[in-house]
Structures are given as structure tokens and as C-alpha cells.
């Protein structure tokens, strides 16, 4: 066969055919749908790699998984009324194969999710959640009773009225969107922590991430913020209600809430204490600045 001035050999034909097929096969998706009768407080376990998982709580006694899974992955889904496991892959898997799933579970279900880079979005649940990703973002909205969310590189966003929370991130930023919680713990390595929160007991800590938060103190609330070298900026709508204790070993302390000034300690460190309110705020840094900022 002649192709213009060039001769198209058998090898060339094979090469062109392979080039045509390769990218198409890599992007192809297969539809997926499974459902099962399920208890209101049953346990659901989901494992995924790339892509996205969206979980929605509903007032039905069943679980429903639907979406698309990359060709080449063998999905697994099995369970009974009290427990159901779904994995977007089983056994041998290929690299970079995104799956996109929408999952509906009873609102009181106990949910456990682990992904590599798949983004996880959860809304409308009030049971216990455990969510883990390596690089996927985590976004949770609702009235969750107990939540553990950990990610190495993904962003972590939480909003709603919740009970007991443990949030952990590496470089991913943690955002608290007007979060109300009973007991809250947030820990990052380099990720920033920001937003607004209200909790009976809370602890935020970071190695080098900056903390920029609005503290809504309530009676008896105790909040602790610790960083090694991240800057801590705290706002509050009612500074008079807060008992403040600040300490920094090397960082500057700036107080815009009141006229109180920090005092240097001997032989090292700076501290500032003031207030007689009903909520307690403690901030400590090694090298990061502390700023009590105005609104």
C-alpha cells in the first residue's frame, strides 16, 4: 500500500492501530449500579482509587450505588442488611483509573471510606463516619455524631452541627464552615486551618500551617491552639466573654481585642493573659506570631 510518498508497512499499520486504540481504552467507563435492603444503622465500607465518591443520606432502608467505573477495574459489591462493602476495584488493578460514584445510604449508617485520590463528598448523615484519603479532598456536611477524617495531601472541609470530630491533614488545608461541635480536634502538618467554629472543647494544632479562625465562644467552652511556627490569627464576635492565655517562645503577640500588652518572660518567651469571660482560649506557638484580630 502506498501512502503519499511513503510506504506503509505492516509494522506501521500495527503502530497506527495501537495508537488509535490506546487512549480510548484508557478513558472508557463502564456504568455501575447495585442496591440492597439495609438497616438504618448498618455499616458501609467503600474503597476507591481515583475519581469521586459522593455519599448522600436518605430516609430509606436500602443502600444504592451508581455511577461509572473505569474499564479495566473489576468492582466488588457485597453484603447483607447490616453490612455492605463496595470496592471500585478487586485484585489486579491498573494505574490512574477514575471511578465516579453516587452512593445513597440510610442517614444513620456507619460509613467507612478510604481512597487514594478520589474526592469524597458526604452529606445528610448522622451516624459515625471514618474517611481516609491520600490525595483526595474531603467535604462533609451534616449532623454527624462521630467523625474521623484524615488526608495526607487533600483539602478537608467540614460544615454543620456535629458531635465528636477528629480531623487530620498533612499539607491539605482544613476549613471549618461555621462548624458547631461538641468535641473537636484538628491537626495538620503544613496545611492551614481556617473558618469559624463553636465547640465545648476544641484543640487545633499545626506544625507550620497558619491558623486563621473565628472563635464563637459559648459558656464553658475551652479552646486550645498550638503551632510550632505557623501564625495564629483569632477573631471573636465577643472578646469580653473570653479568658485569654497566649504564649509564644519566639513569635510576636499582637492584641487588638483589648489594650492589654504582652510581657516578656525571663529568660525567654512572651505571654499575655486577660479576660474574665465564660469561655477559655489558649494559644501557644514556638516561633509563629499570635494575632488577636478585630472583626
Amino acid at each position, binding site marked *: 500500500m502506498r501512502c503519499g510518498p511513503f510506504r506503509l508497512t505492516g509494522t506501521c499499520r500495527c503502530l497506527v492501530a495501537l495508537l488509535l486504540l490506546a487512549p480510548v481504552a484508557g478513558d472508557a467507563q463502564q456504568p455501575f449500579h447495585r442496591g440492597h435492603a439495609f438497616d438504618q444503622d448498618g455499616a458501609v465500607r467503600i474503597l476507591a482509587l481515583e475519581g469521586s465518591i459522593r455519599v448522600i443520606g436518605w430516609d430509606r432502608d436500602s443502600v444504592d450505588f451508581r455511577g461509572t467505573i473505569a474499564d479495566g477495574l473489576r468492582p466488588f459489591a457485597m453484603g447483607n442488611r447490616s453490612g455492605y462493602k463496595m470496592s471500585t476495584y478487586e485484585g489486579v488493578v491498573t494505574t490512574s483509573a477514575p471511578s465516579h460514584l453516587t452512593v445513597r445510604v440510610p442517614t444513620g449508617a456507619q460509613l467507612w471510606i478510604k481512597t487514594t485520590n478520589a474526592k469524597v463528598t458526604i452529606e445528610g448523615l448522622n451516624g459515625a463516619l471514618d474517611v481516609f484519603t491520600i490525595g483526595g479532598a474531603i467535604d462533609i456536611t451534616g449532623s454527624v455524631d462521630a467523625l474521623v477524617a484524615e488526608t495526607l495531601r487533600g483539602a478537608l472541609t467540614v460544615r454543620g452541627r456535629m458531635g465528636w470530630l477528629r480531623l487530620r491533614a498533612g499539607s491539605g488545608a482544613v476549613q471549618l464552615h461555621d462548624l458547631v461541635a461538641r468535641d473537636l480536634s484538628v*491537626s495538620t502538618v503544613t496545611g492551614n486551618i481556617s473558618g469559624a467554629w463553636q465547640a465545648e472543647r476544641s484543640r487545633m494544632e499545626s506544625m507550620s500551617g497558619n491558623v486563621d479562625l473565628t472563635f464563637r465562644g459559648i459558656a464553658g467552652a475551652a479552646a486550645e491552639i498550638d503551632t510550632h511556627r505557623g501564625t495564629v490569627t483569632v477573631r471573636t464576635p465577643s472578646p469580653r466573654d473570653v479568658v485569654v492565655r497566649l504564649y509564644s517562645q519566639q513569635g510576636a503577640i499582637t492584641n487588638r481585642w483589648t489594650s492589654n500588652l504582652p510581657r516578656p518572660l525571663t*529568660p525567654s518567651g512572651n505571654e499575655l493573659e486577660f479576660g474574665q469571660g465564660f469561655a477559655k482560649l489558649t494559644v501557644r506557638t514556638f516561633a509563629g506570631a499570635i494575632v488577636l484580630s478585630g472583626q
Partner: protein
Amino acid sequence: MLIHHPAEDTLHRLVYGEQLPQASAVEAHVRQCTPCAEIVQRFERLRRETASLDRAAAPPPELWQQVRDRTVGANASLRAATSSSERSVLQRVRWPLALAAGVLVTVVSTNRVLRERGTPDMRTPDTRVATPQSASDPGIAVLTLDTAGAGEPTQRLLAHVRASVPQRDVFVSADTEREIMSQLALFTDAVARTQRALDADPNNVQLESMLERARRQHADFVRSTTALFEGF
């Protein structure tokens, strides 16, 4: 007592004395469940070992270079192998034909993708899970770091992270590997700086508390990173 086995992360938190919503139920389960009791024993060993990392030394300066050499070297091998096979093909296929094929491939695959999914996902994969056969793929950075020359505490920490790469062959991208390394170094640096400040001001209770916190975060990071890579 719990009907189901608690998640490993729950057992982790139990061992580390964190508050759990169902702590008594979890403890009761562990007392009667041999597999869970074994997991708890493993975590207790991990806790004992990480608790002794009080004087964690900073990684030696050459460690990062070793990691980089390993990654860059592996990628260079892949590039060399690819370019050598490409040359042999290109000797037989002329450039205009390759160009035309490329255009054709782009048009066909784009049409197919748009038809099937609306918009293509152009995101570069980060973490990859591969078959055991893929372990020989030099393009994939495996979470195994050459720690020769590193201080003993750092080696032990990395050993914990390495040990987390399970039997299921979870591979980690170079970016993630770098991130784990840099975050470990950050903890080591924080502990060392705080320790120096405490040595200079030994009665400072704030520094003492900060040092304890930095060590705890260090251990927590190793624990949570280890757990993140398990179970795939």
C-alpha cells in the same frame, strides 16, 4: 460488645488513649477477639518504639539527594529505554506519517471521550496501585527510601512508613514520597529546636509542654501515615 470488628484506626486511637464514642464496647470486643487483640498488640509495640524517639536527629543532608537520585535515576532509565525503542521505530516510520497519526488519534479519542463523559479528566494521577508485575516499572516511585547514613531514629521512623507498604503493592507517587519526607523532617526539626530552647531554659513549663506535643504529633503522623496506606 460490638458485632463487627472495629476499624484499625479505632484500635489505633484506643491504644493511644484517645476518647472514643464506644470505648467500652471496643475494649470488650478486643478482650474477646483474637485478631483484634493481635492488632492492638502490634500498635502497642509501635507506640513503645515511637515513644523512645525522644532525641530524634535531623536527617543527614545527603538523604534528600539520595532520594532525588533514586527518583531521577529511575525516570532517566525509563526515558532511555523509551527513547531507544522509539528510535528503532522512527527509523522505519517517517515523521509526516507519525504526525498525521497523532492528529488522527487526538481527533478520534477526543470525540470518543466527549461522547462518553462530557469533559475529559486531565488530572495527573498521584498515587498508583499496580500489579506485582508493575513493581519493575521504573517510572513508578515506590515508597522505599535509601536511608543509609540517616540517623537511627529517622531510620526507624522510615522503617515504620516503609512497613506500611502492604502486601497489596501500594505505590506512591514521587510527590507524595517527597511530602512524607519533608513532613518527617519538619517534625524532627521542631523537636530539635524545642529541645534546644528547653535546654537553655530548663524550667520553662511551656517549652516542656511544646516538646511533648511535638513528639506526640511526630508519633501521630507516623501512625496515621502508616494507616493511610494500609487496606487498599
